[in-house]
């Protein structure tokens, strides 16, 4: 009997356990299961994540899209790098996106994604990102998840204190890390001091379509402008840039740029400069830079070379720019959700310096400065500092916010995230990262309204976190639950390239606007065909244009004759599918470019230059149906002097 009762109890316990485990993915904040960390990141098959995270790819040149809390990667969005997976930068339509004043540049170093905002809150329309190497700013649509626009930034070099936006997306701002001669000229490097300039570029964002246009460039002293963030709320209208190398060293910066006890945060009243410029201020300077725009209706990018930029000399707009002394080569320059605090993380220091916006205004009013640098007033450190966070860590880099009065700062040297309280500056928690954390991201953590449930730490060193894959390891990231008083490490996941910063938001903000297909009747591509009956092949001298259509699972036409060695053959492929997630691919044997992946309703063009006589196959590269293997065709290539007429057919 006793055994029976025991078994009965066991049975009930078992039933209870199974019933509970049936209810997956729900809130698990109660009872014994609250200690189950795995459940917090477990998104059951078929379930969806709560938030999107957009991680920069650094030297991959691209942006990757992840889900939180699962850490699953959904997509890699090509931005500054050619991407054979989709044909970006290879297809005729997208090659112009990578055009610059230096010519076609197939790569860049993508750093700091930032989601567009309205009234200081994420609005989910676009995400901006900077190319650090050949200075460029990109705008990516958050409806198509495609790069729609890239503008080159002249007079800049090492475009690092970028691409942060003002709180109504009035501007996307791009600051130079390396100062250079402006305009560029042949001069001795050692004459750097007093001759080189640091350009801070304010790029206006047209509110309806997001189109970019350089409004003005501020030609600042030749320091290194490292990172920046906009003022928000009360400090809207200002922008803050951290600087290092105020020594203006031009060699062995590792030592020579670390001499001064304090560098500056530059506070720029951009509204004042905007007003100056709107009233005819500034000087137009010749400058060559590319502006590349992708048009969703023609599925085609065009590149325009610009030849002039409006520059502003800070001395001509008194009262618009001030320097805030900040210890030890500040790296991160972050502004809290209220706009009151400007945080400078001195990367060679143990402490974090917090400046007060109110104190800054009061000091400016009092007019009591600590001298100037190149005519720009320096506010006294003690007049502007609000507090110092004495963390005990080493090497503070970046700070984000949870919207509940807490700030979270990464420490590179001591490999940790430190949570501290705004206004009391006390450290309330610290958690190790694995290893050597660079940036961190709280979805919305760079806005007036953070969605502060998770924190993602992006690390520079991976070492033993994953199975080894040779000398090169993907960088690791860690997700922490920050909903409680203590941060809780939930999960580790590998990232692609080297993430420098990320942006994130609630899934609801984007998922309902995410485009599923392009409507074929809205396709304005000049080589689109609205119906397979319009399929044709046209010769214009040595150029052969093939107007081709795809649907599961055939090409129209699929037999083509009359192409000759030495021709340039353009395959203009229109995908006539109108169903979500049914792209078709196209590839041709011996083609000196990548495949192209054509979305439903889209037209893309692939160039082939046949070099050998023969009958050559092409096929669909994206498994599209049970008859995908049958989705192929042939092109007959005849000698250059052949008389064979162009002909094309399907099933004839």
């Amino acid at each position: 009997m006793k055994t029976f009762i025991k078994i009965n109890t066991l049975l009930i316990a078992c039933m209870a356990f199974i019933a509970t485990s049936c209810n997956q993915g729900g809130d698990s904040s109660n009872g014994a299961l609250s200690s189950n960390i795995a459940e917090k990141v477990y998104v059951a098959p078929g379930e969806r994540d709560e938030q999107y995270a957009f991680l920069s790819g650094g030297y991959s040149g691209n942006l990757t899209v992840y889900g939180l809390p699962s850490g699953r990667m959904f997509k890699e969005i090509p931005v500054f790098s050619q991407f054979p997976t989709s044909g970006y930068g290879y297809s005729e339509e997208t090659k112009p996106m990578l055009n610059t004043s230096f010519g076609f540049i197939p790569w860049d170093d993508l750093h700091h994604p930032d989601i567009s905002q309205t009234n200081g809150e994420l609005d989910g329309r676009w995400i901006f990102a900077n190319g650090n190497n050949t200075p460029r700013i990109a705008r990516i649509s958050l409806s198509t998840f495609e790069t729609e626009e890239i503008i080159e930034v002249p007079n800049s070099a090492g475009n690092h204190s970028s691409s942060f936006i003002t709180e109504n997306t009035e501007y996307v701002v791009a600051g130079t890390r390396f100062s250079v001669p402006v305009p560029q000229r042949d001069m001795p490097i050692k004459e750097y001091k007093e001759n080189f300039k640091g350009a801070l570029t304010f790029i206006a964002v047209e509110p309806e379509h997001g189109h970019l246009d350089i409004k003005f460039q501020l030609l600042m002293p030749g320091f290194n402008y490292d990172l920046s963030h906009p003022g928000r709320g009360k400090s809207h209208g200002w922008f803050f840039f951290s600087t290092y190398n105020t020594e203006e060293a031009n060699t062995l910066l590792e030592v020579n740029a670390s001499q001064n006890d304090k560098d500056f945060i530059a506070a720029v009243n951009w509204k004042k400069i905007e007003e100056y410029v709107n009233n005819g201020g500034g000087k137009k300077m010749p400058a060559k830079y590319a502006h590349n725009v992708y048009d969703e209706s023609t599925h085609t990018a065009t590149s325009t070379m610009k030849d002039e930029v409006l520059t502003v000399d800070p001395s001509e707009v008194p009262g618009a720019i001030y320097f805030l002394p900040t210890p030890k080569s500040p790296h991160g320059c972050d502004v809290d959700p209220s706009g009151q605090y400007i945080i400078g993380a001195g990367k060679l220091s143990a402490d974090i310096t917090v400046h007060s916006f109110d104190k800054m205004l009061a000091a400016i009013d009092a007019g009591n400065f600590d001298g100037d640098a190149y005519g720009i007033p320096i506010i006294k450190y003690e007049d502007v500092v609000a507090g110092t966070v004495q963390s005990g860590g080493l090497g503070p880099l970046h700070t984000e916010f949870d919207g509940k009065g807490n700030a979270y700062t990464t420490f590179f040297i001591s490999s940790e995230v430190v949570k501290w309280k705004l206004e009391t500056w006390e450290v309330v928690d610290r958690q190790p990262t694995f290893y050597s954390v660079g940036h961190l991201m709280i979805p919305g953590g760079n806005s007036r309204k953070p969605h502060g449930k998770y924190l993602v730490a992006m690390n520079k060193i991976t070492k033993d976190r994953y199975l080894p894959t040779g000398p090169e390891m993907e960088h690791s990231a860690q997700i922490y639950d920050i909903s409680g008083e203590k941060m809780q490490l939930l999960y580790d996941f590998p990232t692609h390239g080297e993430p420098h910063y990320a942006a994130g938001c609630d899934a609801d903000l984007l998922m309902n606007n995410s485009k599923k297909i392009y409507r074929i009747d809205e396709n304005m591509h000049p080589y689109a065909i609205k119906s397979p009956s319009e399929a044709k092949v046209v010769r214009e001298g040595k150029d052969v244009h093939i107007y081709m259509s795809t649907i599961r699972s055939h090409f129209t036409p699929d037999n083509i004759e009359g192409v000759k060695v030495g021709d340039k053959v353009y395959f203009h492929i229109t995908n006539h599918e109108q169903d979500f997630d049914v792209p078709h691919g196209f590839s041709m044997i011996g083609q000196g470019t990548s495949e192209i992946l054509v979305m439903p309703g889209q037209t893309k063009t692939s160039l082939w230059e046949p070099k050998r006589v023969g009958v050559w196959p092409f096929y669909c590269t994206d498994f599209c149906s049970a008859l995908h293997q049958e989705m192929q065709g042939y092109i007959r290539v005849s000698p250059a002097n052949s008389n064979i007429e162009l002909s094309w057919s399907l099933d004839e």
Partner: protein
Amino acid sequence: MKKVIYVLVAVVATMIVACGGGDGQSRKDKILAKSVKDPYENWQDYKGVGPIQDLILPETIDEAMVAKGLEIFESKCTACHKAEKKFIGPAPKGILTRRNPEWIMNMILVPEQMVKEDAIAKKLLVDYNGSPMANQNLTEEEARAVLEYFRTL
């Protein structure tokens, strides 16, 4: 004692199975599976599975609708269908002598569901070499216009 453990194992096993959420075939499917009737021959019994369950066609043909239907058919359907000749898929000519109007609408609007749940559509998929009917995302109004065009063939 042993018996009790068996019972326990059985109960737990049942619950795990119930957890799996595998609802298997729908009731309708099971009934259809039992039927030995040829769905092609008994087409009048099938309205298809989907949003359209009642559609009575008026006597007269609406020419404006036909024109619109033809335009849509040419742009979105001709990759696989020729009006009067079998191609990747069947020819729509005379379709109303083989299918109910509701069935035609549902096949256009929700082909993925139809090939899973409707007996005629399942059979068609096999007869047409496994080539799936693409969902071309037509609105109900657009599908209705295409049907009107089919009436003129």
